[in-house]
């Protein structure tokens, strides 16, 4: 009999990269083109089933990092892993994600994490070239996702969930 493990996962990234959209796509299969910035924190849960395991991800969708507001680091307390989100059409958001990774790693240690390059449906506006994506992929599990079409979203969350399964 497998016990139901609950795992807190934080979504970290610059504002407007699609953190909320990814959560809503993954948890409720919905997407909206209108931008509604997240104020404070919003928590959603989702059960993921693997062959002979099940896990509950408690997803902490935090307000994004920008010049108007910093991510509150105390919110990382108790996180088992994190999902770094960047917007592939805005190169600078990758830098923000990497900076947040350094802070998170200093607090949480070497916990499972994945890097998500979102808005993959906007290929024409993509600002990351193959070389820099390969370089990122050498250091991280990297997923290209589109919260809009749903491509890659399930895979990214499942991969992180899998790394968090009790051993």
């Amino acid at each position, binding site marked *: 009999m497998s016990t139901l493990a609950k795992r*807190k996962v934080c979504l970290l990234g610059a504002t407007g990269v699609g953190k909320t959209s990814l959560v809503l796509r993954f948890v409720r299969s919905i997407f909206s083109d209108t931008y*509604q910035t997240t104020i404070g*924190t919003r928590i959603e849960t989702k059960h993921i089933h693997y062959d002979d395991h099940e896990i509950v991800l*408690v997803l902490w969708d935090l307000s*994004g990092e920008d010049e108007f507001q910093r991510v509150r680091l105390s919110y990382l*307390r108790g996180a088992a892993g994190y999902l770094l989100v960047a917007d592939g059409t805005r190169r600078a958001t990758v830098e923000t994600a990497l900076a947040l990774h350094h802070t998170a790693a200093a607090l949480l240690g070497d916990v499972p994490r994945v890097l998500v390059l979102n808005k993959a449906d906007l290929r024409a506006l993509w600002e990351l070239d193959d070389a820099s994506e390969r370089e990122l992929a050498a250091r991280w599990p990297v997923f290209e996702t589109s919260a809009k079409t749903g491509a890659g979203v399930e895979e990214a969350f499942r991969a992180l969930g899998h790394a968090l399964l009790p051993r």
Partner: protein
Amino acid sequence: METSIASSILASLGKVVLERQPDGTFLQRGDAPAWFAHRMRGVLHADTPIRVESLFPFLEVFLPEAEAVWQGEGATRIDSDVWCETAEGGEELPLEATALLVGPARLLVITRCDELFHERRLVLQRARELRITYDALAREIEQKDILMHCIVHDLASPLQTILGVLSSLDERDPPGEDGVLLDAALDAALRQRSMIREILTVFAAEHGGLDATHEEAVVCDLHVVLPHVVAEHERTARGRNVRIERDAPPPGSFVVADEPRLVRVLANLLDNAVRHSPVGGHVHVRVRGDDTSLEVSVEDEGPGVPPSLAARLFERFGRGIGPEAGTGLGLYFCRITVERWGGAIGYAAPPEGGARFWFRLRRAATSTGARAA
């Protein structure tokens, strides 16, 4: 009686009061606001112990901070940040928690804060949208710049051929009117080449061609550069019957600037002055200095700059677009170049008419090479 009024006031303000028990659970005190009662549906008794962190996972990160208050360490009150739950029907339920120590009672007050939430959203949303639009525009401008750079670059290669052909024809020294026409064509082609170079230089300067580490290191002597540039312009000026008069900066007038670009800055200002001078007019080049800087000014007796253009003079295309305005990048180039050396540039309309352009450069303490020589 009073307690019951107070507790219904709190409930109608959307606040629920919970008291922390020694075992870490909470008991509800007073009336429950509607949103909380709704959450607690199915809980039979009002005095059922509540595990708030299960009810509101967000509180996991707040309770350790609240604990400090309840232990009487330091502050007697602490507020959480806003968090958002999903209410029945999917709408947002923004909440905020406060931990208080009232006498011996360790209280956790949770407040529904729609107004604060919507106000904050209004401001942040607008700020963030503007930021995103701004970034998108900046990116678009950069892409257009790159496109322009490519186009200009491509325009230069056939021009090289044209110049080559014209020069070899010129060497044959054709007689009479052919020679005059050829000279005119050669002049125009040379002018076109210098405009193209100017655009490419601006592009290089904007996109990191002038690096900061470069600046301090490079020093040049106005005593050498100024006469040289003026001499080069005297020929064109004579063609328009304009006379250039200049001050002689003392030897060792070292400034922070690199020579090829300083030559271009000076050439730009002189070009403009000669072009806008009336036939038979004078252009004055003056040098003034103090302990820390040297100022060069170029004055002409032309019509001056219309006040409507003066404010944007050093912007891109600040002189408007037209044959008289050249590429529209000359003064812009001067400004970004001079500013990168830590200097300043400006325009003043002298009361007696005409135009006066000036730039100020920092004095270089010493020029090791030049002094040693």
